């Protein structure tokens, strides 16, 4: 069962770790000072959430948070490809749309985890939801505002949605050992969570005049296997940068 628990917790933690890092790449580049600070703060929250998830495994005698974050082989990661995607040419529309799709998924996952039969996870979910409430407000408020503002803003959000939607869909790829997790009452099936996620995002997208359609099989095919260790082509560069400092002195205490 420990393999099943590690599979679940790493999926949650690795998403947070890499999303936090990608958001943090915006520090100093945000569209206005106030938003730069707010978004950087969200990035910092996500990284903290990753640490808290890893700690659940550490408490069971597995690796430490630092070992999970900085000393793993790429194929030991369980992150979705959505969070590995780079910021490309730093279009804030793309950053906001990823934040929106991702934090809607966070809402749904954490709400479900609150009722997890694995108590340490249920307790942590309860705690993280406090911060996530703000993330979700921040995300939908901007998407709704910008979606209904100028034609340029609307087009940029729509093209971001088109580009990201298959990736976001695959946040809910079935995890290894998922039947065991579901049977133990740790988390509902990923396909159920995906439906809840669609219900979470659809009213806000409609409000913003944005359209999403179910991704085709051919769009999803190259994204399959992320939860089983298959990394996107962006991972290596990202991980090299994330681990640059810790690799410079692996024995250092931080």
């Amino acid at each position, binding site marked *: 069962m420990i393999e099943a628990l590690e599979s679940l917790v790493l999926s949650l933690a690795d998403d947070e770790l890499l999303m936090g890092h990608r958001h943090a790449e915006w520090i100093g580049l945000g569209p*206005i000072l106030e938003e730069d600070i*707010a978004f950087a*703060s969200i990035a910092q929250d996500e990284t903290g959430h990753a640490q808290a998830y890893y700690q659940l495994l550490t408490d069971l005698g597995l690796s430490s948070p630092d070992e999970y974050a900085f000393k793993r082989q790429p194929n030991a990661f369980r992150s979705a490809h959505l969070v590995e995607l780079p910021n490309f040419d730093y279009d804030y529309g793309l950053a906001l749309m990823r934040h929106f799709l991702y934090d809607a998924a966070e809402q749904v996952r954490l709400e479900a985890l609150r009722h997890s039969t694995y108590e340490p996870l249920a307790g942590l979910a309860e705690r993280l939801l406090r911060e996530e409430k*703000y993330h979700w*407000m921040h995300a939908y*408020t*901007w998407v709704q*505002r910008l979606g209904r*503002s*100028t034609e340029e803003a609307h087009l940029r959000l729509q093209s971001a949605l088109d580009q990201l939607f298959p990736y976001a869909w695959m946040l809910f790829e079935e995890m290894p050992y998922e039947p065991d997790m579901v049977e133990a009452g740790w988390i509902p099936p990923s396909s159920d969570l995906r439906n809840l996620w669609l219900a979470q995002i659809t009213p806000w997208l409609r409000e913003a005049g944005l359209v999403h359609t179910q991704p085709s099989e051919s769009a999803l095919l190259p994204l399959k296997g992320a939860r089983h260790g298959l990394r996107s082509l962006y991972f290596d560069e990202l991980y090299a940068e994330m681990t640059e400092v810790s690799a410079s002195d692996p024995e250092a205490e931080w």
Partner: protein
Amino acid sequence: MKKSLDPRIRRAEPELWQLPQRPLEALEHWPTYEVFVLRTRGSHAQHVGSLHAPSPDIALLLAKEQYARRSPCVALWVVPTEAILWTSPEDEELFTPATDKSYREPQGYLHTRERLEKYRDRLKPTSA
């Protein structure tokens, strides 16, 4: 979000934010909002600073990270700066008394008890 029983109080209802938004003209800045923080339930709102935002709802969003991150907060207010009527610092003489009115300041009340006791003593009938 719970509605306040006080009709003067308008609470943010994030799910229902439907405020009109006017697109900015070229080179136009967003307006500023003044931010107030309530440190504990029932405490008075303290002004903590200002920020730029395109609308009141986004002012609240941004205020949370600007001003409620490093110290306790149970609620935030935002007020459009232009809604505030203020006296000019050039008129500060309005607040400067022309004669000594230190008796109205807190230290003016410092010796009240002593004076009262002294007065009471004077009223006591002297034993013959």
